[in-house]
């Protein structure tokens, strides 16, 4: 019995080799960047390195986007629900955090509890229409619900709370994770949350519930025939997804100086959709890689091309759709066998010549 557990423990690390390496690289990243600039790790530790602080900020944005994209991937890639109102989950987290911290002076812990409750309510709201509408109609109804939410946030009547079309400003972030003075801590907390959700999702997908979700994506009628109450499973996926997106929203509200009402708009949902499609639909690490690619591409193009960036960005997406049909991770998985074979052939060639 003991032997079995040790074996599975070994397997766990072996299976998550890539993840472990990523965590290692990401934990050393700020310090390495600091070294390039001439700042010692101690200075970076005290948040004094300029470039490393900047890189941390960019990475935090990627982490937030990755958490958000993960939640969308669970809904769209794994359960097969095309929702166009996903940004509502995110915006609920962001706005509720801001409002509770700013207007009601609650502590962060209580705020997060409220956000979690709101996330569950949101998911149930979407769940209410689940049995009635399917496919593209579900997408439209969710779009409708989210647009009403978006309009509510934008409306002048709620302006005192939400800041109307300017956005929610000056959210008092607790001092111990303030992005201005304690950014390194913020960075590691965001990374930890991302890793936590990634592991939870991995576990979820390979759990019996997750398996049924995949079955629903493949063929809902068949899953129904097999005796599963598909509604319950879809609702479970919705709740998990909603909670994750709301947590991403919480981090967003704490990190960004302004929560713009765009976070509730269709643009944000489409961004998540693009990230998932770039990374590979239905692959969890695809969402992470897609988020990094999307954010870095956007950032780089804006920095070096200026106004034309949007144009180039759009072109790149069209090219990805045309030539990388399964996203980065999906294509990699398809080709990895070929790549391994080619690699072996190359090694064999060298061995022969030796």
């Amino acid at each position: 019995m003991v032997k079995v557990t040790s074996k599975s423990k070994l397997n766990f690390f072996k299976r998550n080799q890539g993840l472990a390496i990523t965590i290692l690289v990401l934990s050393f990243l700020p310090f390495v960047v600091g070294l390039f600039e001439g700042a010692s790790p101690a200075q970076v530790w005290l948040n004094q390195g300029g470039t490393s602080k900047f890189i941390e900020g960019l990475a935090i944005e990627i982490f937030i986007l990755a958490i958000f994209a993960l939640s969308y991937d669970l809904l769209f890639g794994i359960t097969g629900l095309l929702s166009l109102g996903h940004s509502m989950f995110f915006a609920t987290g962001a706005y509720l955090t801001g409002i509770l911290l700013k207007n009601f002076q609650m502590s962060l812990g209580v705020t997060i509890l409220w956000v979690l409750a709101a996330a569950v309510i949101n998911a149930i709201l979407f769940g209410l229409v689940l049995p009635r509408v399917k496919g593209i109609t579900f997408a439209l109804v969710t779009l409708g619900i989210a647009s009403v939410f978006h309009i509510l946030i934008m409306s002048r009547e709620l302006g005192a709370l939400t800041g109307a079309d300017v956005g929610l400003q000056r959210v008092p972030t607790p001092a111990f994770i303030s992005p201005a003075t304690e950014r390194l801590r913020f960075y590691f907390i965001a990374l930890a949350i991302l890793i936590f959700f990634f592991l939870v999702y991995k576990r979820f997908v390979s759990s019996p519930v997750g398996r049924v979700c995949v079955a629903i994506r493949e063929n809902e009628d068949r899953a129904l025939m097999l005796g599963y109450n598909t509604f319950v499973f879809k609702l479970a996926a919705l709740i998990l997804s909603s909670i994750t997106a709301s947590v991403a929203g919480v981090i967003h509200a704490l990190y960004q100086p302004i929560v713009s009402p765009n976070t509730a708009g269709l643009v944000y949902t489409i961004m998540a959709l693009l990230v998932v499609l770039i990374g590979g639909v239905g692959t969890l690490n695809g969402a992470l890689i897609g988020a990094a690619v999307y954010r870095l591409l956007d950032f780089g193009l804006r920095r070096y091309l200026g106004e034309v960036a949007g144009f180039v960005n759009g072109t790149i997406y069209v090219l990805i759709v045309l030539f990388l049909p399964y996203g980065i991770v999906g294509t990699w998985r398809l080709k990895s066998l070929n790549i391994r074979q080619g690699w072996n052939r190359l090694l064999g060639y060298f061995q022969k010549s030796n």
Partner: protein
Amino acid sequence: MKNNLRKDLPRWLTLLALLVFFVVAARGMETKDWVITLLRGLSVGSVTFLVASGFSLIFGLLDVLNMAHGTVFMLGAYIAWTVYVRPDTFVDLLTPTLLLLSGFTLSTVWKRLVRILKQKGNWLVIVRWAGLAVGIAAMIYILPRYPITIWDVGNYSQSPVTYSYLADQGLINLPQGLPFEEISPMAAVIGLMAASLLTAFSLSTFNSRSQGATSLSWKDFIVYVILFGLGVAALIFNDSLTSFLDGLDTTWLFLIALSVGVMVGVLLGSVMESTLIRPLYSRPIYQLMLTLGLSAIGMEAVRAIWGRPEFVMPKPSLFAGVGDGCPATSLADLWTNHCSTIMLFDGRIRVYNEIFIPLVGIIVLVGIWILLQRSRLGMIIRAGVQDREMVEALGINVQRVFNTVFAMGVGLAVLGGGLAAPSMGLSNAMGETLILNALIALAIGGLTNFPGAALGSLLVGLLQQVIIKYGAIGIPIPFTEIVFKPTPPLVPASTVLLMVFVLLILPNGLLGRKE
């Protein structure tokens, strides 16, 4: 019969409820108010319908959710504006465009050439890439040196009202056409012709499946000669053509602008379908992403070319009269004085916005209806919406029908853009709001149902205008003193709520059938 009625009960009840709602809403207003609201609703509905109908045809037949439809609508408005306000730029652009396009009309010749080259051995690959490189290099060399009178966007954005007023009076002084300086006209024409021929040939070699075309006849060259001739003629008669368009009555100029827009739209749709959408028929969700990407590209292109400021497009002279006898009180007055407004039930009604646009909308509706019900193409389209594979199995070239329908849908959206430009004005955001309206209209009416698209658009337009009107006059809440005035955010919210309610009662929309 009884059974049918029972099955359709929710549908009839919903329709009845909507009717009652609008009748009650109309009862709360004065006569002139509800006439204006009705006409405005029809107007907004017509523009929405022009976009929604194309969208629904494309979705029904091709299963493609063309999210770029709103951008195409915006593009149509900007193209019409350019032709209308700046005919000189349009004439300057005519020559290079026609010359570059002409090479692509020779597809049969290229097929023949490819066959010959294939028999000769491996020449094809070399010729293909060399041709592409030389063709694109020639374009890159010639196009920036080709003189095109470019406008200063700031001029139009700083004082759009002044400009539109001047245009109404026909007082805009167009800048002098630029002379050929860095390149001689002869070299430009020959270079563009060569570039077009080489690129078209190289691109056609990529289409490996092309078959047929064993012999050539003079008919294959007709279109090419016509396009080429037109291009050269536009170059030779550049100045006179410009001054002719400049002196033309704005009504005719508006018609020319609309037809140029529709032609560009049809061409754009055809090219989009055959090069971008066609490879993705087996991957539906990627079409969504592709069209989203395309819409971003189109939006950025509009921003790069026309800039961010909002433009006003002057109304054509037929609908712009303000002199004696205006506002018109009778139809005869309207006809003789070309008034911009007409008095109806003591209310002032803008002729272009509230009468002309709905009229065009109704004409297009009837036209498409006849096309769908009475023509062979319409029969194929209707059959294809029901069962695409079966139509294919019956030996009909579905590919070509797809292309036609896509081109038609894009053309309709462009027409809508051109029509809406004088009433709505031009901005970078006009496409997004409209595609959302169109989507809501389609969801209400039934996604692939053509009458549904019309009904949905009408409902969306009417509801929005009713809410806007009540925002001005207010709703007295019974038994209290409070007067509730719907705020502007409620306008889009109301249509969205209507959509959600309709979809929850009837998941396939008001007129849609169960799949």
